[in-house]
């Protein structure tokens, strides 16, 4: 399920006579925690539903068939399932019944927490086996199944003499498709993921192939940027199957430099100089000591780490190293031989990611680099207030902003997640120029402009998914 479905549900619940008097934020908390002391039984029932079946698809053709089933155009006979599975699916979906069957894509890894409204019966699509990776031997791009992990693409690209130019903000074992139907954030120092996403092969509700964008070149001057418009919530409009992403050539020299800083007061001005220097980087990651230790088991650092990925021609990189050492005033130690976390062997990478995934990561905070000390101290306040230790993962962009994903060592109970998220949101609002991206904040935000924008997207969804098949909206 997704952003628009949750939002529509919350908006419709606020209109319910029994709940109209409740404060919106309290109501959202009640929905998120499924508080049956506050909510009517029917609403709790909606929030407790599960998909009728989960189908692990192995090819995009199978997605097409599932959509046909959901449309009532085909029985499950054509699914190619063994007899017992066929009867199971048919019974579970109640094919002969006259009701909507939704198709829901399941993200591989969620950074934060599940959506409020779960699949209402229907078919959950597990895309983990849509994991093919084809690196173009002539160009710098790859066609990747939405279930392929970012790490697999990274490794495959290195083998093919290419470089994946975008990196996960939180070191979790994401599928590439999690950027389209989950909450994974990929970016480089230079650009957002959007710039590297050329196109998505998908299926519309009527099971016809729908390619958004292009596969070999970016879209400019070809009409509305539908790909960009739907990117963050794509599975609410179409079912994505594979994506074309841009790569870069693997440079002759690729380095990973790690600078240690004693405190944020020293790191922030260094980041200001870095982003103002015009020096190209692959990535500029920020960790606190706990975050660094999680991503690099056995290693310890005093306070804060700035990790820079540098690639280029040998003479250019040599010039860059000297200049960066001079610009990053205030660092206490530098290592040039620490391999990047991304180079970790795949199974070890997955194990580390799994450990980080146990933390509560309520959302992402973006702020100007100058606000980093304030931001970190406010996150520490949340940590102390919530009695949950804090680890920080972050990345800097050359625009002069830093995005942080605070990870709290707390049980993933809905009430606690909601409370932590709320505290982070409250603190961030006090920092000028900062924003907080989380699915709960998306529901809490209720200003006129935000509502107007969501209304446009909701109208688009109603029209693009006219058959009410692709993660249909659920009225309360």
């Amino acid at each position, binding site marked *: 399920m997704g952003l628009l479905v949750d939002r529509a549900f919350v908006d419709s619940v606020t209109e319910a006579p029994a709940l109209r008097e409740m404060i919106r934020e309290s109501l959202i908390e009640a929905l998120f925690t499924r508080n049956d002391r506050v909510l009517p039984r029917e609403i709790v029932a909606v929030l407790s539903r599960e998909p009728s079946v989960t189908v692990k698809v192995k090819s995009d053709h199978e997605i097409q068939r599932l959509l046909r089933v959901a449309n009532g155009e085909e029985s499950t006979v054509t699914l190619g399932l063994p007899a017992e599975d066929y009867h199971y699916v048919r019974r579970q979906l109640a094919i002969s019944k006259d009701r909507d069957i939704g198709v829901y894509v399941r993200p591989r890894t969620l950074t934060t927490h599940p959506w409020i409204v779960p699949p209402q019966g229907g078919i959950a699509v597990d895309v983990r086996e849509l994991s093919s990776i084809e690196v173009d031997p002539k160009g710098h791009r790859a066609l990747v199944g939405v279930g392929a992990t970012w790490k697999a693409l990274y490794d495959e690209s290195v083998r093919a003499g290419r470089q994946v130019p975008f990196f996960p903000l939180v070191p979790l074992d994401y599928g590439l498709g999690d950027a389209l139907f989950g909450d994974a954030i990929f970016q480089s120092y230079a650009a957002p993921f959007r*710039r590297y996403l050329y196109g998505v092969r998908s299926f519309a509700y009527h099971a016809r192939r*729908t390619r958004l964008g292009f596969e070999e070149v970016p879209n*400019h001057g070809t009409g509305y940027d539908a790909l960009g418009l739907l990117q963050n919530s794509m599975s609410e409009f179409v079912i994505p199957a594979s994506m074309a992403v841009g790569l870069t050539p693997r440079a002759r020299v690729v380095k990973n430099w790690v600078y240690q800083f004693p405190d944020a007061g020293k790191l922030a001005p260094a980041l200001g100089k870095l982003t103002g220097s015009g020096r190209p980087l692959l990535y500029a990651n920020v960790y606190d000591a706990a975050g660094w230790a999680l991503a690099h088991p056995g290693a310890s650092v005093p306070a804060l780490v700035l990790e820079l990925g540098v690639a280029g021609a040998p003479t250019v990189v040599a010039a860059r190293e000297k200049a960066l050492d001079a610009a990053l005033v205030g660092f206490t130690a530098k290592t040039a031989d620490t391999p990047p976390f991304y180079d970790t062997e795949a199974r070890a990478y997955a194990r580390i990611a799994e450990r980080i995934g146990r933390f509560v990561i309520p959302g992402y905070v973006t702020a100007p680099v100058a606000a980093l000390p304030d931001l970190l101290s406010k996150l520490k306040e949340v940590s102390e207030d919530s009695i949950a230790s804090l680890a920080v993962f972050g990345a800097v962009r050359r625009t002069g902003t830093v995005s942080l994903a605070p990870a709290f060592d707390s049980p993933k109970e809905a009430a606690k997640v909601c409370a932590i998220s709320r505290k982070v949101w409250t603190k961030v609002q006090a920092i000028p120029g900062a924003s907080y991206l989380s699915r709960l904040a998306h529901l809490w935000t209720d200003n006129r*402009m*935000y509502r107007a*924008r969501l209304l446009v997207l909701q109208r688009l969804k109603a029209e693009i998914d006219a058959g009410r098949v692709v993660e249909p909206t659920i009225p309360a």
Partner: protein
Amino acid sequence: MYSHDFASLPKIALLQWKMIPDFVAVPKTVEEVSRLVQFAYEGGLPIVPRGGGTGLVGGAVPNRGGILLDLRRMDRVEAIDMERRTVTVQAGRTWKELADIVASRGMFLPISPLGAPASTIGGWFATGGVGIGSCKYGDARDLVLDMEVVLPSGEVVRTADRFADLSVAYANLNPAFFGSEGTVGIITSLTLQVFPKPEALTPLSYSFKDLSAARDVPAAIAGSDLEPYNASFLDPMHLAFVKAVRPDSPDPQALANIVFEGPKDEVTASEKEMDGLIAGLGGKKLAEDVARSQWEGRFDLYPARRISGGLVITQAEVPVSRFPDMFRRTTRLMHRLRMQVAVNSFLVDRNALSVEPYFLMDEQAPLGPLTLAFVKKFADVALALGGHPRGLGLFTAFNFRKMHKGATGIYETVKSQLDPYRKMNPGKMTEVWTRYNLPIVNVIPPEAMTLGLEVAAFVRRLKPTSDRYVKIETGGR
């Protein structure tokens, strides 16, 4: 002046479209724009927004009269935030003026259109802006954080949260207006990301004795670990056109104009690396003053218009690896249609090359407009090679379905949901309107336009002589 844009339009087009607006309004504020949009709605008139009129495909030219909004008076710089490195500006300011203003504050507006002295901020975004500097800094989408837009209902909305990281922000409507050609809303103000002014900016020019070597240069640069700020490639025919009107300009030759910007030490090191790369491909480095004059003349690429009085530019993005194919097929097309065409190009990113052929057209000659067949045939070549033509407007909307195939319905939905009464710059993207608001003849089916241009191509092929505006003697042609 409002009945055409930069491209030449044959007079015969007046039979098909009412290109002269009924009214021209010159608003200064967003409130005025909103009221005009509401007035258009009440009066049942189409409304066409227009910036600097530098478009190439008739996107800002009326097709059924109506109200034309000239937005150039909306040119106020509303705020410059040095700390957050942003500038907020009304949509009618030109890119060149804004770049100069930003530069005077020690900042850098890193990308700009080729028509920057006249092209407006809102206009270029609405046409899917990609141009000088895109190779390193991306396109206009990467720069625009937030916009103020008047929707067809007259409602004024902000499209995003200017503080959010737009790559992941929820409910970001900026993409709906990128490349929209003003068909779903009128952009009135934009907040743009700017960057610190680079320490050095060094233009370099390399020449090639024949085109076969130059054809491999884009792929070599894209496949290298260098990161040029801009990399453009000029055809000998282009320089022949320019020489015909400016005798002191360089002789016809294939030119690669590469620009590096950034810290001085890295620019110097990159220059040396590039010298080595180009020397390996048989290129010769030209003197610094030639490179400097090429860079300074970047916004003035088409003086050859004076030769014939008319000039048509067409654009496409093709995979870099297919550029030699593209060049071969375009040259063959040029010979078949008996035309002189200059094929300039620039790198969009590591995979894409923007190929921009242009030709001269005598608008007064009875068979002059037949050369427009080239536009159609060139778009077909781009599509066949995995790319796409760029720009949608009166003359190119017929490409729309060919480009988007199964996704066409999604694009149509964007239009129908945002502009249900079809009054905002209508009939130029998902369908082509004529001037006649009568059944059957009110819309030109894409197939009919395609057929018409195919017939034009056929007639061109029967022409006994080739168009010859300039004489060129080079190894390439």
